[in-house]
């Protein structure tokens, strides 16, 4: 323990990883030692720990290099780590509101897995070497399969988890296959060695990068690698889904930046049409498939897929602005999407259903909850003075700046489609009369989590300047 505190005090870059690891062990230990229902204790401890680590992350300075260049903390890594920590803390907070029936005596495993996955992400953000990158990537992924199947008594849980795992394993194989080519051509596992090799024009390297991109497409849920997403979202516990929809995807984008911006360098221009096409496909399919959904979690699954498309648009711009806007988008998406899932959690717990129908008259039953949901929906739909508006605009700008007018047009028009289904939910909440008069009971911790998300969405929307400046600054270090 002392060493860990020392690490944090010194601002050592590994302090966060060490802290998270210790927290995960602590969760397991408490779960085994404590009698009765340990979920509140574990959740509380983990939340406090994560919050502290989140704070501690601001004491860490970029630029540290460890293990012979394998691990390096730069601006992007730090940004990503804060994002992961923040998202995890929010999720743990919301998880405290999970019902004891599904949760008692399993809280230890739940939090352990969550933290291990977080650990993987934290390392992933800093990994500059393919072996570490792959190991961290898998460390992040395996707990996700577990958490997806967490409600193992539900008949759907194992199904979703198994699907997730099968697709995930296949993707791992593909990534690994791709990496093997990259390694084979460069003779090195350092990401930095990719660009020089590319200049030699090795066809195998292109093949390797394409394979890797396909694998990463699974992680970020780009179409057509997205099909596991709705099933996993529907079956898993909602706080975890909130987290799943944001954190691992952000991690996927970090890897994409690492490999295709830092690694590939200017040669990535060649890739842009492909990524742009992927973005277009993802936006289009995601939005279209979301239209007919009746289950709100599935709806958000598909809408999340569409959002990934928008973020990919920023990636496809391949510029300082584009990258910065992706980072901004990720944060905005974090608040909006997690917030929406927290509301879904609250309503789902009260109504025992995830059907959109149960949102009837929510605004009249619980005005604040309804308003929060509306804000999240509108933010995701890209409506002004909410975070998502700026986010979408910025990625469009990034695309237009690169002359990809068609992509911006497509994105902007499909946003309208997205608003259609968001408004359908809004319609249930605001226009339709309520079926029951009683308000939806929301536990305190969940209220806090929703409140934080609302604050984030509104703050980023009302005054985006600091966030934008920060995002651009971070993106600037990559170019």
């Amino acid at each position, binding site marked *: 323990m002392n060493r860990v505190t020392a690490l944090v005090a010194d601002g050592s870059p590994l302090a966060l990883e060490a802290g998270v690891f210790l927290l995960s062990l602590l969760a397991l230990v408490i779960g085994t030692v404590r009698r009765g229902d340990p979920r509140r204790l574990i959740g509380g401890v983990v939340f406090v720990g994560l919050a502290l680590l989140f704070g501690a992350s601001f004491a860490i300075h970029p630029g540290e290099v460890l293990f012979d260049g394998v691990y390096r903390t730069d601006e992007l890594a730090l940004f990503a780590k804060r994002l992961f920590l923040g998202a995890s803390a929010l999720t743990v907070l919301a998880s405290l509101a999970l019902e004891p029936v599904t949760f008692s005596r399993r809280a230890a495993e739940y939090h352990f897995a969550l933290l291990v996955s977080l650990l993987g992400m934290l390392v992933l953000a800093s990994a500059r070497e393919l072996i570490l990158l792959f*190991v961290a990537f898998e460390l992040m992924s395996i707990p996700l*399969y577990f958490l997806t199947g967490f409600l193992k008594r539900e008949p759907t849980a*194992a199904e979703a988890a198994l*699907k997730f795992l099968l697709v995930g*394993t296949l993707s*791992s*194989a593909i990534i690994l*296959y791709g990496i093997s080519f990259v390694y084979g051509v460069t003779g090195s596992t350092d990401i930095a060695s990719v660009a020089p090799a590319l200049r030699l024009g090795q066809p195998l390297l292109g093949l390797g990068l394409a394979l890797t991109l396909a694998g990463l497409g699974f992680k970020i849920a780009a179409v057509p690698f997205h099909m596991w997403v709705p099933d996993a979202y529907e079956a898993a516990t909602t706080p975890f889904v909130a987290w799943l929809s944001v954190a691992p995807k952000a991690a996927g984008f970090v890897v994409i930046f690492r490999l295709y911006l830092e690694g590939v360098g200017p040669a990535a221009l060649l890739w842009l049409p492909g990524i742009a096409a992927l973005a277009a496909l993802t936006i289009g399919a995601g939005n279209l498939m979301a239209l007919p959904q009746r289950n709100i979690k599935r709806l958000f699954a598909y809408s999340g897929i569409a959002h990934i498309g928008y973020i990919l648009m920023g990636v496809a711009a391949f510029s300082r602005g584009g990258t910065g806007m992706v980072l901004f988008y990720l944060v905005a998406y974090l608040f909006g999407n997690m917030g929406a899932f927290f509301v879904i959690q609250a309503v789902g717990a009260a109504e025992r259903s995830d059907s959109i129908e149960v949102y009837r008259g929510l605004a009249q039953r619980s005005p604040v909850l309804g308003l929060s949901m509306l804000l999240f929906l509108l933010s995701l739909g890209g409506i002004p003075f909410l975070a998502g508006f700026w986010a979408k605009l910025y990625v469009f700008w990034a695309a237009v700046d690169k002359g990809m007018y068609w992509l911006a047009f497509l994105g902007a028009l499909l946003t309208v489609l997205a608003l259609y289904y968001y408004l359908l939910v809004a319609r249930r909440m605001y226009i339709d009369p309520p079926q029951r008069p009683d308000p939806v009971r929301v536990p305190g911790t969940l209220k806090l989590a929703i409140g934080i998300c609302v604050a984030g969405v509104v703050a980023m929307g009302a005054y985006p300047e600091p966030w934008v400046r920060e995002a651009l600054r971070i993106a600037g270090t990559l170019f």
Partner: protein
Amino acid sequence: MGLSSYLTLAAIVFCIGLFGVVTRRNTVGILLSVELMLNAVNINLVAFSRFHGQTLGMIFTLFAICITVAEVALGLALVILLFRTRRTVLADEIDLLKG
């Protein structure tokens, strides 16, 4: 034997694995097919490593083997769980979640 022979061999096995992945009805069978694909990757890595005269690829292989085994183990646990709750392990019978 040259490197390309190994690479071709690995590609063949990879594709056979992929074929198995998309055609097998039994989830265990799918898992096995994925294993084949991963195995092909290992061949690739080791071959590259050898032809570079380094150990990097072999180290990678080591990690890869461990990780895949862990994945398969988890997958099998899930299959057992699924079987317990749903009485089937056939992929096309587990479609409660769709659309």
